[in-house]
């Protein structure tokens, strides 16, 4: 394999991993019990990262014993959840199941919740009381929220003022509130600070709510109070808003009074400017600051910033050997936290794990991200990038590739990209769950 030295390869195998992957430590107490049987991989989490990894592990090597542990029977995807708010799709349309992983790909899907991980004995404990042993573990727990990072916003508050940043009941709650809102009301959207899941998600949400308002509540307003100075695809979104929803959406960056310092669920009010300015909303959508899924930090995989550092070639944790952390939880260089990134990371990780079991060099990774956003059902925009490892082992975007949909493109291109956005959803969900 070009571009990777023997020394690098041994480094990739990780502490203690080199010997076991090559089958050299028979008799040593750390040898997995299954060293003469099929290697066992346990995948924690059944989102875009976990489900794709489980599927591709079995595609790359159908002899592997792959168990995926997911607490829910179905998975409601975050991609498409803004479309539900816009009335373009239903929650059923964006609910995926694990039937094909079980029947077509031979993944042992277990509906349970991981309570703890013993990385020395390589055992995962589940809420049901069962335990599962692994040779390599893949953690794909997604995100959790930093409750109380802003005064007044904790988990209980999210039952009144939804975040709707994990799709499912929270999406339904926000949708109900929007439906109950009177025409002429104000919807306040508060995007979180970086890094967070799906950077173009908040402006797409504003767009889809505007689409719903235009049809049903045309006198209503949308106020975006942002913890940041700008947002993904900003120029494209703003051009489209001027064209499709003139005067309806107002964006306030952090430095102009957009940063929320307190949320009051009793009066449906958010406070900005260090508490000096109040904004009362008819409906408020507050998206809190984020961190790696709780089980990742509980297992010693997260750093002080709350995210999980990994070797960006194999996605093996740099903190705990034989555990790979993928998807939103991982520190993945320039890759954004998106379902598309998680799907790609999962495939590269599957290829790396299979290679490590075989004692061969993992292929050099190649990642792609494509984020489509619908501004209306007939108006789509996108951002794309191709990523490679640099000489320091960090995933970087390739300068010659990627970028945004062109500004001032003919309307036909926006229509085409709206069509492809919906095709993308079908493609990625088939590739992940089908």
């Amino acid at each position, binding site marked *: 394999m070009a571009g990777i030295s023997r020394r690098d390869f041994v480094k990739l195998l990780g502490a203690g991993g080199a010997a076991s992957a090559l089958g050299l430590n028979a008799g040593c107490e750390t040898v997995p019990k299954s060293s003469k049987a099929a290697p066992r991989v346990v995948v924690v989490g059944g989102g875009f990262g976990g489900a794709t990894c489980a599927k591709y592990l079995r595609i790359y090597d*159908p002899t592997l014993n792959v168990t995926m542990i997911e607490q829910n029977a179905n998975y409601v995807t975050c991609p498409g959840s803004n479309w539900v708010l816009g009335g373009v799709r239903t929650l059923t349309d964006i609910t995926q199941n694990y039937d094909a992983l079980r029947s077509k790909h031979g993944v042992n899907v277990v509906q349970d919740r991981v309570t703890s991980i013993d990385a020395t004995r390589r055992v995962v404990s589940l809420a049901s009381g069962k335990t599962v042993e692994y040779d390599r573990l893949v953690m794909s727990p997604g995100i959790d929220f930093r409750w109380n990072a802003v005064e007044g916003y904790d988990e209980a508050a999210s039952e009144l003022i939804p975040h709707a940043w994990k799709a499912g009941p929270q999406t339904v709650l926000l949708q109900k509130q929007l439906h109950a809102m009177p025409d002429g009301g104000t919807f306040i959207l508060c995007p979180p600070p970086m890094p967070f899941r799906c950077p173009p998600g908040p402006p797409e949400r504003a767009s889809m709510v505007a689409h719903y308002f235009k049809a049903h509540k045309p006198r209503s307003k949308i106020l975006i109070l942002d913890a940041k100075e700008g947002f993904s695809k900003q120029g494209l979104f703003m051009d489209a808003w001027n064209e499709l929803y003139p005067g309806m959406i107002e964006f306030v960056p952090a430095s102009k009074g957009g940063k929320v310092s307190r949320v009051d669920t009793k009066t449906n009010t958010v406070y900005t400017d260090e508490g000096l300015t109040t904004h009362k909303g008819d409906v408020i959508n507050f998206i809190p600051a984020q961190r790696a899924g709780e089980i990742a930090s509980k297992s010693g995989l997260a750093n002080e910033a709350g995210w999980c550092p990994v070797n960006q070639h194999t996605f093996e944790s740099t903190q705990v050997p034989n555990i790979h952390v993928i998807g939103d939880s991982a520190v993945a260089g320039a890759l954004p936290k998106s379902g598309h990134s998680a799907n790609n990371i999962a495939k590269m990780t599957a*290829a790396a794990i*299979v290679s490590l079991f075989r004692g061969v060099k993992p292929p050099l990774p190649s990642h792609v991200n494509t984020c489509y956003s619908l501004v209306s059902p007939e108006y789509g925009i996108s951002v794309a*990038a*191709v990523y490679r490892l640099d000489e320091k082992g960090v995933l970087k975007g390739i300068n010659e*590739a990627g970028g945004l949909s062109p500004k001032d493109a003919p309307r036909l291109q926006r229509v085409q990209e709206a069509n492809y956005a919906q*095709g993308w959803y079908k*493609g*990625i969900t088939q590739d992940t769950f089908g």
Partner: protein
Amino acid sequence: MFFSSKLSKAVFSGLAGTLALAGATTIQAQEISRAQVIATTCYTCHGTYGVSPGSIPSINDISAERMESILQGYRSGQRVSTVMGRHASGYTDEEVKEVAQYFGNVQKRGK
């Protein structure tokens, strides 16, 4: 690996046997090719093995020569696209050739 299921079973049960009986020294090294991992990144939009379930075109039934020519067209901008130009420009001539050949072989094997 994208052999026919019959062939892949034979190959992999053979591999498993080798692993179980002989240990590290005689493992038949099976490196996963760069073309294959790049191809899997196409599947995110175009569907697994390039068989698309939606409005994005399928790419599973294109010969190696034609695939290479299409991708080079996207790279140069001669071929008009919404997003493929932004993707194709991220790969070298050699990678484009290898990926095109990979897709051509997948097609011949019938996946």
